[in-house]
């Protein structure tokens, strides 16, 4: 992809006017905290990875924080969430304990999966978070299954199934669109379009427009700016209303950007340093909400300091726990294969 100007020019314009209607100052501050927690958590995870304390694959969410924070802000506790392998941010946004998530990354018994899942595989029944899946595209059919269960039980819940622009080329996505539309399943397919399927730019991997693909299944779609949490929230409010109202599925394409590599061992040769730098400097979602709050005049620069400190403390505590929690007992090798 060429040097991006704005990730979603049009949507951005809409939200400038919408911002004050979309969230109260308290909510905006909460979004700042939620996103900062993800950012600091991921930076710490990167550091622990660098120290050899986290192994294997580790896909960081840095840059994309506004997507899950904005969408999650309009959901209800009974709703189900499912995502792929870039999942730490989703878990934190679902209210899962940072200590349990970080300890899973280090493969310790205090992790959400007792150290048996790893970065890509964590779940929380309590928070209706259904993973954490490593097969690209799998979240769509699994997601419509969760949505099917909401409809079967008539519990009023909906499902958000996240996947990326790369996954949007998998056949199972369209098998899922078809059934979701036929049966009016309460699901939001959320395309986190960070412009690259691993190292291949959207221009090189995807023909046509993602939302037009959904149109072919009679599924309406929305596009929004994923570097602006208020824009995401605004779009999500609209989409959720449609889906919870029994009108069937919708697709929400969120234009975003990951600052880090696809996984930790990505040298990033497929995009320019300038492109990454431009996104970090001029489109950062955390800076954006911070500025919006400051412009609102209710908070000063200094008022952010204790918040930043508080978040740092939470993350440090998680990192500490993740290093001190014992490794799983060898007997755990044989448990949880069957019920």
């Amino acid at each position: 992809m060429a040097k991006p100007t704005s990730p979603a020019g049009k949507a951005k314009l809409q939200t400038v006017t919408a911002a004050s209607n979309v969230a109260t100052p308290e909510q905006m501050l909460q979004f700042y905290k939620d996103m900062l927690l993800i950012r600091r958590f991921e930076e710490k995870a990167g550091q622990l990875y660098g120290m050899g304390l986290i192994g294997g694959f580790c896909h960081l969410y840095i840059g994309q924080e506004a997507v899950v924070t904005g969408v999650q802000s309009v959901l209800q506790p009974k709703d189900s969430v499912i995502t792929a392998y870039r999942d730490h941010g989703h878990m934190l946004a679902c209210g899962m304990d940072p200590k349990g998530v970080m300890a899973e990354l280090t493969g310790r018994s205090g992790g959400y999966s007792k150290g048996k899942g790893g970065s890509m595989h964590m779940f929380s029944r309590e928070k209706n978070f259904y993973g954490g899946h490593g097969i690209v595209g799998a979240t769509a059919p699994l997601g419509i299954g969760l949505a099917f269960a909401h409809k079967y039980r008539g519990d009023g819940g909906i499902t958000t199934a996240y996947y990326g622009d790369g996954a949007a080329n998998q056949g199972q996505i369209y098998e899922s669109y078809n059934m979701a539309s036929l049966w009016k399943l309460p699901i939001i397919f959320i395309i986190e379009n960070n412009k690259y399927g691993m190292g291949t730019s959207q221009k090189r991997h995807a023909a046509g427009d993602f939302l037009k693909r959904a149109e072919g299944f009679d599924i309406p779609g929305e596009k929004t700016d994923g570097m602006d949490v208020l824009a995401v929230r605004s779009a999500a409010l609209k989409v959720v209303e449609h889906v919870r109202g029994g009108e069937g599925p919708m697709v929400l394409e969120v234009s975003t950007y990951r600052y880090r590599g696809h996984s930790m061992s990505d040298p990033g040769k497929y995009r320019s340093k300038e492109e990454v730098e431009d996104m970090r400097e001029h489109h950062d979602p955390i800076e954006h909400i911070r500025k919006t709050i400051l412009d609102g005049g209710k908070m000063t620069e200094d008022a952010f300091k204790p918040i930043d400190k508080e978040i740092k403390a939470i993350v440090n505590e998680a990192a500490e726990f993740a290093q001190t929690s014992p490794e799983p007992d060898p007997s755990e090798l044989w448990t949880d294969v069957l019920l």
Partner: protein
Amino acid sequence: MSIQILMPALSPTMTEGKLSKWVKKEGDAVKAGQVIAEIETDKATMEVEAVDEGVIGKILVPEGTEGVAVNTPIAVLLEEGEDAADAASAEPVEVASSPCSMPACPPQAAAPSHAPVQTVVDIDEEKFFKNVQTMTVREALRDAMAEEMRRDGDVFVMGEEVAEYQGAYKVTQGLLQEFGDKRIIDTPITEYGFAGLGVGAAFAGLKPIVEFMTFNFAMQAIDHIVNSAAKTLYMAGGQLGCPIVFRGPNGPASRVGAQHSQCYASWYGHVPGLKVIAPWSGADAKGLLKSAIRDPNPVVCLENEIMYGQSFEVPTDPEFVIPLGKAKIERAGTDVTITAFSRMVGVALAAAERLAEEGISAEVINLRTIRPLDVETIANSVRKTNRLVSVEEGWYFAGMGAELAAQMMEVCFDDLDAPVTRVYGADVPMPYAANLEKLALPQEEDIITAAKKVAYAA
């Protein structure tokens, strides 16, 4: 307190690298996420980002240094209110733990090679045969589903042509009329998608029965059966189970050619986290499928199209269930043990009948469950007969016979008086021509020949 910045590992295999460039100098302020240095690994040049905010107090490893071990302190970061004196006192220290302090492969000397076998409670099957009804395997399967759907509102059936068409092989006949279209669901021809849907619904606690028109088409869905259904309980540390049944006809039917004639017993039997059943008779079909629907784990039910129309006596008691993981001795014998599953049980019984005429007493074991395999029943039989012939319609390589041979060698090697012998489908894609198809499939004569060979009666 000042913070040591350590040489990071940028891949799980990296142990050292070259510190090729410092982007920040001593005295520079850095923010979390800013690039401070570049390092070269064996694979690529990558950037090192600051995790904490502060000022670079001291650079401990100059740029251009090669072979810097992972976790070596490379710089000192001063936090707010600290000065260079703090940095000066921070001499490089030996890092106590190497980056990968855990042994590459945990010693397994004391560990068993596979998970402990779950205890299976057997039933008094004869008791249930006091009240029976003669019905086809097809009807037995339908009754199993209907009874379990009456019992549990979370059970539903989905698949191609299961509702209005009444089942491609009429197995779901009448279910739509009784349970309605909320619970009997016609899907598009989209195996990968609806298998995934079923798994997702099972994560949420429903109990789907996913019918594949044949297991050949489940190849399109095997990712969800293995990666999503079988592995999630383990990946979730026991938090999230997947109570689902995948069922449909497996193995060769009749004259349907290579792409519709394959046995998947060893494929699914290979996977920890799955249970796999292969019913033969009507009672098997009903009792095993009912158990499968009640089981909290994902179960693959391998049926056989040719068996659908065959009639058997089937217990009428709705509480008749056959425990998963138990084989059944269909015919007792003393000279040779013959194991078979699905349609081959009938062929093995016919072979045993003819062997008896020739004075060879064969014990025929109906495996019923492929995984977990009832090794105990088979081994006990082999301890008595000292011989084993394994029969399957599938290919031999890494097949069920190969597994049985290995297991018998492990548990009752000294009891064997002859090599375990396998009867199996020809190692070719299934031919269409009637004569070739017959040659490709195990016949009664093949079992008789094998039994005589191990009994040294040939």
